[in-house]
């Protein structure tokens, strides 16, 4: 194993896949410099033909990637901020997601749409989203939401090799997160949740940066409550089995997610547990998510996005 940080793990995954397969290329605004460091330096190794800086034109970036994917390439489009994916809604939600189905399986769209997501940087309503629900809601897309350097590298390599469109959300708050990864190549299959902490009293299902927040809370309250933390790692495909296995043991569930609460993924996951694991529940499911309002900037951000105290409060409530 070797020490790295989250953004370096992402860069390493891109580097290895660019090296392995000449059909892989990256395009997006300022990917040569790398706005968040995830693509920095790759142009020196692979050249500007494969690390393509584009103008500020999200529909063209997404369309070029998706179209080229149909025509034999494995492009990685960096949308910079996840919020900006809405600009390319037609390309991502209608074309990438639907075109295999719509055309009777005759065409595949092996594209990766990656974007920095999430709050904590006080950037406000149009630079802080983690629009997971929009993607998970859309049949045809896959969605990876890594919470550690290990997961980030392994999931991104799998994403690039997938014959389907994959949305890969890397969290801005995790970019400097340290962690260990193997020296040798590895991949993480989609649809396999990971138990990030074992426990016996309550199951916390958390994604992306909320995994790290939940781990910190669990550590703080370990003398009172034994918390098990399950990280789905991919929301489509979604590993419900691992969650249900955990619920059988604990009987109590808190779902923690940074996307908006209303029609958010906490609602979806909660209902799937109700449908498939109701008999194992000893208490109503609690959920922690962003308030039903745009994400405020500056000092107001913490009043919209979930905070450790909200997670601790929900655990307390479900244990009561």
């Amino acid at each position, binding site marked *: 194993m070797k020490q790295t940080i989250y953004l370096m793990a992402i860069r390493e995954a891109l580097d290895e896949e660019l090296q392995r397969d000449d059909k892989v290329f990256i395009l997006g605004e300022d990917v040569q410099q790398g706005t968040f460091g995830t693509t920095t330096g790759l142009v020196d190794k692979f050249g500007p033909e494969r690390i393509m800086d584009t103008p500020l034109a999200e529909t*063209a970036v997404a369309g*070029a990637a998706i*179209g080229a994917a*149909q025509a034999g390439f494995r492009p990685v489009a960096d949308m910079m901020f996840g919020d900006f994916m809405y600009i390319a809604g*037609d390309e991502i939600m*209608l074309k990438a997601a639907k075109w*295999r*189905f719509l*055309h*009777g399986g005759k065409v595949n769209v092996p594209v990766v749409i990656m974007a920095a997501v999430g709050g904590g940087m006080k950037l406000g309503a149009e630079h802080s989203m983690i629009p997971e629900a929009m993607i998970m809601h859309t049949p045809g897309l896959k969605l990876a939401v890594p919470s550690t350097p290990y997961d980030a590298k392994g999931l991104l390599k799998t994403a690039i090799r997938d014959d389907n469109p994959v949305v890969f959300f890397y969290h801005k708050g995790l970019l400097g997160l340290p962690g260990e990864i193997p020296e040798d190549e590895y991949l993480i299959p989609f649809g396999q949740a990971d138990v990030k902490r074992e426990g016996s009293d309550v199951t916390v299902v958390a994604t992306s940066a909320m995994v790290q927040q939940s781990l910190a809370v669990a550590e703080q309250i370990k003398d009172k409550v034994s918390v098990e933390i399950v990280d789905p790692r991919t929301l489509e495909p979604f590993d419900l089995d691992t969650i249900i296995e955990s619920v059988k043991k604990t009987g109590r569930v808190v779902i923690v997610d940074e996307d908006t609460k209303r029609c958010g993924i906490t609602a979806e996951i909660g209902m799937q547990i109700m449908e498939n694991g109701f008999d194992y529940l000893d208490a109503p499911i609690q959920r922690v998510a962003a308030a039903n309002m745009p994400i405020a900037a500056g000092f107001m951000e913490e009043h919209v996005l979930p905070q450790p105290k909200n997670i601790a409060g929900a655990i307390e409530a479900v244990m009561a």
Partner: protein
Amino acid sequence: MKLKNDDLIFMYKTMVRTRKLDEITIKGLQEGKVLAFYHSSQGSEALAVGAASFLRPDDYLWAHHRGHGIGYILAKGGSGRDFLAEHYGKATGSCLGVSGFHFADPENGALGAAGTIGSVFPMSLGWGLAAKKHGRQQVTIACFGDGGSNRGTLHEAFNLSSVWKLPIVWICDNNGMAQYTPITDAYAKDDIADLATGYDIPAVVVDGMDIIAVHEAVQAAVEKARAGEGPSMIEAKTKRFREHSIGSPDVVHNQPRTDEEIAEMKKLDPIITFKAKLLEQGVLTKADVEKINNDAEAEMAEMDQFCVDSQIPDPSILNTLVYAE
């Protein structure tokens, strides 16, 4: 390329087949065999066939939505039967009966058809980028209408196709009508081609009712693209003989188009004018013309029967189509 007599006959035949396929699709809609809707291409056959004839099979084609692409598809060697079966909702359709009216024939460069007008621009940009990266002198033919030209996506894709010198031939079917709205109320200038020159993309305006004029302009652009000289644009002024969507009102805004107006347009019918030319030049005889007509009718009757006899898709396929294994 210099057109030989056989080429001219191929183009004439393909226009006739396009019109007949259009007519049988309309009839199918009226008889309840066509399940979704249909946007007739009558009046724009010269553009479709002129543009898509004599391309390479591996050239990418984004057909114009009028006629759901039939003229382009047939000219490029695609299957009219797959097209019709798809419209009939049958398992033998080009998309297994799942799409209703979209067409895909990847082996023939048709990588799909969209439901959203103006999505041609970013997606064709991707096909053009792939064509350039493959390095096999492929071109991308990307068609849109005057309506589509109003989308902002045009700006992003025209701009990047020019900056990246992509082998794309942008073709505008300007029939002057976007559903019920005339172009005079949707665009401030006379020629959409002016949009291309603004991005340093060479552009020409051609008579879209003249198949030879269209073909020569498109071929010149194709040759430039194959030579690595970047994108071109061709604006073809065409006519829309039928209402926007079969069964919808035939209006300008909310005022009906007159019979006189339509009759005047039909004097320019590209099939009739091309036929007259070929007869006059002795490329075709009256007997040839009759045979081409009869053959096309027989082909359509056979297609119709095949599609009627085809099975409805098994719903168990649906789950297999959402994701590739």
